[in-house]
């Protein structure tokens, strides 16, 4: 069986994380910003699994499971907040959501 260096997987996960950070900074739509956060979580998950395979320790894969649970909870609450924001302000543009209280 030929091997490929584990660093290839780490570079891929770094690229995904960087794309997530870039999207978080340059996007102006709240929903797309939220999707960029999910992209960052996915990038971190890949490095967890890669390290688990490298060190032959299953704990890394269990941690991915926990990250997914937290991501699901976060998605539910975050999207509920987006709905509440849209209901009060009638906009999804992050530039117009600049006050804590209306």
């Amino acid at each position, binding site marked *: *069986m*030929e*091997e*490929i*260096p*584990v*660093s*290839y*997987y780490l*570079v*891929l996960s*770094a690229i*995904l994380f*960087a*794309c997530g950070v*870039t*999207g978080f900074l*340059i*996007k*102006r*739509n709240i*929903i*797309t910003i*939220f*999707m*960029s956060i*999910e*992209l960052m979580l*996915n990038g971190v*998950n*890949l490095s967890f699994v*890669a390290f688990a*395979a*490298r060190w*032959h*320790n*299953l704990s890394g*894969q*269990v941690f*991915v*499971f*926990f990250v*997914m*649970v*937290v*991501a*699901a*909870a976060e*998605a*539910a*609450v975050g*999207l*509920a*907040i*987006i*709905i*509440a924001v849209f209901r009060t302000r009638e906009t*999804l*543009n992050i*530039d117009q959501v600049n006050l804590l209280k209306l």
Partner: protein
Amino acid sequence: MLHLVLFSVFGLICVAGAVNLLVQKHPINSALSLVVVMASLAVEYLLLGAEFVAAVQVIVYAGAIMVLFVFVIMLLNAGEEEHTSGSTVAWLLGIPGLLTGAVLICWAVLRYSGGGGVTIGALPGHPKDIAQLLFHEFLLPFEVTSILVLIAIMGAVVLAARPEAVQESKRES
């Protein structure tokens, strides 16, 4: 050879999806490219042998969470994003800074991660072994996440309910 080819093909699909997420103006296009990223990530997990994680990735991420996103995009009738032109300084400093950072990180990871290779299916993560860990070593965190999910459900219901509906239910009780 097979491992490298599969890794490169699905890694490229993954990166293309991530870049497409940034480029697209309409949120629904971004959501669909995020589905592509997650599906190809599931294949990468399979290459590393993490069968359970790959299955959960497809079911929870590409299934449940993305359905939630698409549902909210359609519910709020989100249109194309209004573009605000960034400042010139941000463009001039940001793009070279981003490229330098990316090259530095890739160089550092490739140079100092100590070698060490992985074969196809290097660490088979059978559901049985994962469950063994989850229900013995990680039992407390597992139970804590159940409380977290319960709180998240209640929070989502309270936040997304219409204010009038909350007041009516208070009056009734």
